[in-house]
Structure formats: C-alpha cells, structure tokens
C-alpha cells in the first residue's frame, strides 16, 4: 500500500516539468495544438496531484478535481490538441472543440451536483479503489467518462500512430517516429489502467498513470528534439 501512495507523487513530479515544457514551447511557437496539449496535460497533472492529496486526507473539492480532470476529461483535451495538429480543415477542428468544451461543461455541472459521501472515505486507501463507495451508484457523471475517453483514445493514440507511420514512410526524423510511438504507448498505458479501474480493478491506475506520464514526456522530448546540425564544411 505504501508504494500505491507514493506513485501519484511521482506522477505529479513528472507532470509538472512536462506541463512547463509544453507551455514554454507554446509561448515560443504558438499553435492551438500546443495550447490544447498544455491544457490536457495540466488536467492530467491536477488529477495526479489530487490522487496524491487524497492518499493523505479528504477534501470534496479535491475529489471532484480528481474525477473530473483525472478520470474524465484529460485524454479528450490532449486528443483535441492532436486534432488541431493533424486535421487540415480548421472548421472541423473548431467544431469538435466546441462540442468538447460544451461536453466538458456538462460533465463539470454533473460532477458539481453529484452528492459525495465523506464517511465512505478511508485514508491511505487508493482513491481509485474507493471512489465507487464515495459517489452514488450510477452517478450520471460516470456515464459521460467513456465517451470522453473513447474520443481521447482515438484522437491522441490514433494521431500519434498515424504521425509515426507517415514519418516512417518518409524515412525522416527517426526520433519523431520513436517519440510518437512512446506517446501512443503512454496514452494506452493509462487508458488500459482506466479501463481496469472501471471494471473494478483500481489498483493498477496509479502505475498506469506514472507509466503514461514518463512515456509521454520522453516521447514529447524526443519528438521535439532539434535534428543534429549538419557538419560544418571542412576548410582545406
């Protein structure tokens, strides 16, 4: 159980510099995809921080942050960044963003109006194993999460795999191929852990999140690495 309590702190420690790195890249280069990735990663980081907090103490607002940002929304917002990167028709990307924003607001409303049972909280027990007892059975907000996560999976993982395939076909930037593979693998790790949590096996969630944070950060660093400069011409 001790390791389970440590993992969310480690994920938060990985996510903090990851968010800063993406935010700095956005400030340097702009681009809607970087902004949306930054928002999605900040949600992921907030979810990890909330898990770490809830391993020590109860707070209903931290719980709501954990469920809304950590379980429901972050993958979809990350995937929306990939939509802006890969979809050439801006109107399509804008329309999907409007739907995602409205859906997120609706999920936030459902989360805020979900009654919580603090008496069901046990300190030291992973929140991923006890959230079902804290929330009412079949809480409406829980019905929304599969839709956000399906959208996030298809866009984030599908986009990373598609990018890796295109780069491999062109035989350019092997670092970007590997970077996209790592991003896809990281997103799949947390998606698999989330699915297991949904099916009642919450003990794998924290490990999946740490794997996702580490793999996606490594993938981002690799994919954004500057190509090695061409060697300077030799003077005779």
């Amino acid at each position, binding site marked *: 159980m001790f390791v389970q309590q440590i993992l969310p702190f480690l994920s938060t420690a990985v996510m903090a510099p990851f968010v800063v790195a993406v935010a700095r890249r956005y400030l340097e280069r702009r681009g809607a995809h970087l902004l949306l990735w930054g928002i999605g990663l900040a949600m992921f980081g907030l979810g990890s921080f909330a898990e770490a907090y809830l391993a020590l103490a109860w707070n209903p607002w931290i719980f709501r942050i954990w469920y809304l940002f950590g379980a429901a929304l972050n993958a979809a917002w990350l995937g929306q960044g990939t939509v802006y990167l890969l979809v050439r028709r801006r109107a399509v990307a804008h329309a999907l963003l409007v739907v995602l924003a409205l859906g997120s607001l609706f999920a936030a409303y459902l989360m805020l109006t979900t009654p919580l049972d603090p008496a069901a909280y046990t300190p030291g027990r992973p929140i991923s194993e006890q959230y079902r007892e804290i929330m009412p059975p079949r809480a409406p907000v829980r019905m929304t999460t599969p839709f956000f996560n399906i959208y996030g999976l298809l866009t984030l993982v599908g986009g990373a795999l598609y990018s890796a395939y295109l780069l491999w076909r062109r*035989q350019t930037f092997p670092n970007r191929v590997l970077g996209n593979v790592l991003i896809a693998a990281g997103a799949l790790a947390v998606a698999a852990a989330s699915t297991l949590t949904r099916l009642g096996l919450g003990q794998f969630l924290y490990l999946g999140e740490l794997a996702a944070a580490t793999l996606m950060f490594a993938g981002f660093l690799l994919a954004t690495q500057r190509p090695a400069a061409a060697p300077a011409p030799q003077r005779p």
Partner: protein
Amino acid sequence: MARSSGSFWGRWGVPIVLGALALVMIGLVAVALGVAVGWIPWR
C-alpha cells in the same frame, strides 16, 4: 530512417509495433464502447 536495412526487424519492426499498438487501441475502444452502451457490466 533505415527502413531498407537488411534484417526483418529493421524493415518491418516499426509497422509491426504500430500495428500492435493500434490493435491495443481498438481493443480498449471496444471495451469502452461496451461499457458506454451497457454490454459490459461495470462497477
């Protein structure tokens, strides 16, 4: 990218890895859809 290298894995390693990850993605989407429409019981 050394796609044309002689070994099997040098030539096909990347598409095999991408295909395997795509299969995992499809499987997870299928499970999530099953949960969403109620075919797969969830807690």
